[in-house]
């Protein structure tokens, strides 16, 4: 979880800094950071010193469990939720109310309703995405699952209930497609964003299935896919061909969203409903395919991406074996490569959609975890990178939170 509430809640009331190219320090400075790392084989917590140079590992937690997301509740700074399963056992959610010292399993993890005998009901394969609810709704959380489902908890993640307005909507079920219509390890609902001005105003995305908005707390939904491209030869009016990889709402400007899609990088400025492709200005040999999308906590013109090779058979590796983040500081007009400190070649890992994030300090700290199990950080907004940890399992998600 971003200190500034990348998904919204803690951003309420923050002053927009859209015209500031590089926001001046306002006493924020550096500070201790908690990095929450979810991997294919367990979870780790890394605690930094105040300079963010030195890190202490705490883990593994749940060794052997597939942890898709590990998120701290920014409303209390204590409650951690972990989306877990194993290769053999079904999915569940673990909760800690003491920053990971002890864990308790959710009494009722996300699960679809049981259908009558003879009808084929859906079963949650794994909970993929966790988002704390609005700042005004303490204890409320949302979860996105594979196959695509939206779930809500109102008791801090102990019991979860399906959001029927989405999960049982026949049109949406058609757009979700079958098990073969999504990401390699199952179709997913992800990128749950809550408007910091209105707890009923939600965005979410489905891979596959497109980007959608609700203004009534999930009871009804409408697609927002105008301007988004789909794979060549497919019909973009069919929502099941849309594959948004990661959608983020700007903490400093909730009317602006950015998206890393299967087919490019986009920006949306509400009330417009048309996405603008801003990835065309990326270098041609790098392209604008990738998974993560990271937004500056105080500047809605600044975002970071981590490009990936999406050509031919979709290697999902660094393009040409050369890794690097890219930043725009003008809302996508131009991009700069940020690779100082990273290996210079023969890099065949990449960064998954939840595995890159920012902290709230000034300068902003950036963090990403690789498919090869390395955790990298930058204390200066990506100008220089340093490796925090190596030899971890494949990293699925990285979140940060401030440590007092």
């Amino acid at each position, binding site marked *: 979880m971003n200190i500034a509430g990348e998904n919204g809640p803690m951003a309420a009331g923050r002053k927009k800094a859209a015209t500031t190219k590089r926001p001046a320090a306002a006493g924020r400075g550096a500070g201790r950071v908690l990095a929450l790392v979810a991997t294919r084989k367990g979870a780790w917590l890394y605690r930094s010193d105040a300079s963010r140079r030195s890190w202490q590992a705490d883990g593994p937690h749940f060794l052997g469990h597939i942890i898709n997301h590990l998120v701290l509740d920014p409303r209390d700074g204590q409650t951690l939720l972990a989306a877990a399963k*194993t*290769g*053999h*056992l*079904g999915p*569940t959610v673990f909760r800690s109310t003491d920053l990971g010292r002890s864990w308790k*399993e*959710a*009494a009722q*993890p996300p*699960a*679809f*309703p*049981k*259908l009558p005998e003879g009808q*084929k*009901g*859906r*079963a*949650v394969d794994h909970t993929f995405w966790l988002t704390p609810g609005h700042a005004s709704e303490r204890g409320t959380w949302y979860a996105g699952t594979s196959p695509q489902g939206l779930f809500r908890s109102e008791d801090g993640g102990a019991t979860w209930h399906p959001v029927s307005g989405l999960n049982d909507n026949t049109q949406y079920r058609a757009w979700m497609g079958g098990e073969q219509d999504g990401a390699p390890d199952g179709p997913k609902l992800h990128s749950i964003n809550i408007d910091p001005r209105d707890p009923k105003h939600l965005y979410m995305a489905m891979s596959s299935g497109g980007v959608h908005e609700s203004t009534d707390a999930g009871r009804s939904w409408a697609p927002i896919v105008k301007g988004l491209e789909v794979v060549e030869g497919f019909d973009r009016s069919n929502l099941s061909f849309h594959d948004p990889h990661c959608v983020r709402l700007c903490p400093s400007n909730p009317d602006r969203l950015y998206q890393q899609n299967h087919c490019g990088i986009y920006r949306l400025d509400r009330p417009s409903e048309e996405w603008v492709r801003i990835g065309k200005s990326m270098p041609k040999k790098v392209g604008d395919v990738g998974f993560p999308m990271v937004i500056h906590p105080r500047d809605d013109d600044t975002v970071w991406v981590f490009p990936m090779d999406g050509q031919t058979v979709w290697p999902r590796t660094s393009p040409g074996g050369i890794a690097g983040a890219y930043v725009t500081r003008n809302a996508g007009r131009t991009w700069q490569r940020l690779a100082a400190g990273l290996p210079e070649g023969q890099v065949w890992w990449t960064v998954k959609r939840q595995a890159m994030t920012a902290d709230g300090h000034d300068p902003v700290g950036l963090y990403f975890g690789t498919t090869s199990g390395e955790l990298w950080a930058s204390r200066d907004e990506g100008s220089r990178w340093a490796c925090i940890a190596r030899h971890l399992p494949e990293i699925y998600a990285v979140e940060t939170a401030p440590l007092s």
Partner: protein
Amino acid sequence: MKVLIPGPLLSYTKSREVEAAGATFAELLSDLDRQYPGIRFRVIDEQDRMRRHMRFFVNGEQVFDLARSLRPTDSVQIVQALSGG
């Protein structure tokens, strides 16, 4: 009756062998879940289907139907398949 528990579920039972009761396999699983909350959902999904990588045996014979009847003298084994990744 005696129920043999696989390693991945020891975090629930703390013991390789536990006692549970039920006239059917479904009832037995309910009793296990009452004693060890959460254990059932890790092995049976919300549509009452056995999870893909779990196997269930009664007196050495594999069970595919939750309605299978049980006797108090039966011996039950829950096993994880040699798969899962």
